[in-house]
């Protein structure tokens, strides 16, 4: 599943990194690192992370949005 975090909204509460630690990790106290394509097996944990975000910065395909637009890898 694909996901996007709006890093302008993210305030580093780290709720996602608690609840889905294989998809979201904290680099230092406030910087978020995440995998934009999460394994389907992570769906339940990603759902918890999306709901728990205090600033609702996470968009995940099939959870709180329709399919995300496809982008070409071509430059």
């Amino acid at each position, binding site marked *: 599943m694909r996901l996007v975090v709006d890093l302008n909204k993210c305030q580093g*509460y*780290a*709720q996602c*990194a*608690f*609840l*889905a*630690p294989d998809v979201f*990790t*904290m*680099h*230092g*106290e406030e910087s978020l690192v995440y995998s934009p394509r999460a394994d389907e097996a992570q769906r*339940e*944990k990603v*759902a*918890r992370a999306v*709901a*728990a975000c*205090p*600033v*609702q910065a996470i968009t995940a395909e099939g959870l*709180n949005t329709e399919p995300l637009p496809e982008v070409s890898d071509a430059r």
Partner: protein
Amino acid sequence: MTQSSLLGQITDYANRADPYPIYAELRKTPVLHEEEGGAYVIGSYYDILHLLHDPRISSDAANLAAAGDDELTGPDSTGLPPSFIRLDPPEHDRLRRIANSSFGPPHCPRRIDSMRGELSRIVTELIDGLGDAREIDLVDQFAYPFPVTVICRLLGVPREDEPRFRTWVDPLVASLDPDTRRSADTEFQKAAQDARMQLGMYLAGLVEQRTKEPQDDMLSDLATSQGADGTLSMMEVLSTAVLLLIAGHETTVNLITNGMLTLLRNPEILQRLREDPGLSVRIVEELLRFEPPVQLVPQRTCIADIELRGTTIPKGSRIWLVLASGNRDPERFTDPDRFDPDRPDIEHLGFGSGIHSCFGAPLARLETQIALAELARRLDSPRLLQDPPPYRQNAVLRGPRHLPLAIGGVRP
């Protein structure tokens, strides 16, 4: 303070089962100040959110004591220093970071995730333990013992000591209730003071043991922490442990109980949860908006004059932020008095916001999600025997004292 004042009505036990009409009244006055020397009470969502992020709003216990309140928890009262919930930066940040280094990311990212199996096992055992009973008290038989067991395991406090520490926790929690505190006699205050000291001394014994033989628990980690923020003094370890032990269960018990009560008042949502346990995630967020376990934050003061909606709140004033009122603010939420886990926007104030936002939020969420999904699945035809149920005295940490239910049985 007369009982007809809005602040008096908020603390009045008679309104505990349904304080929401009073909060609606409160929101008509953006900055409510009813009595000379009294607290400034804020009930609108955007004002609360703004003040939770305003560095001129202090959580420091010493500032609160100077504002003429709360002699109980001043620095000298028990010998235990204030915990990070009662401190401002930079002390707050240092203590919270050290506590977090044994609880969550970046240092300990899997602590909570790795407890999922154990949380499910505890829930299963407690529901199995209901046996053939046809009438149960959800609080005493489930919603209290579950988070107590969890916080004991997390900290490394022996579960069988619960009857002992409960006798200290109860007066301490009661002292957080503004109404009790105001009307309290000196004997009551002394009891709460003694309780914090005794709880600290009890935990000191465990910490001493863990310092010699560290185990995989937070008491061991707190006692032996050595990071960029340095080490905690013994007194800092104890005040942190007292905070985590109390906050770790006194709030979750109310979230779970408010949850079951709300589901039984909304049977179609309970039925949906039975069919789809994943719905528990959205149900818990909506619960945190609709019936938050911490109704208000009464322990802040301002350390400068603050202009808010045409009113000047003078430096040194006490400020109450009524989170539960902000959560029902129609300027922020559509149809706020409806319990609706499908609402697309649930940016609630249930865990506060800003630097003091709930430390244990991820654990509370997971506990309540698992608890409600399993209760919905396994309790056959649950029915409220009393609506509204009897509430705890406390206006801050609000929730039912008992939740008597009739059940047809327990499913496997």
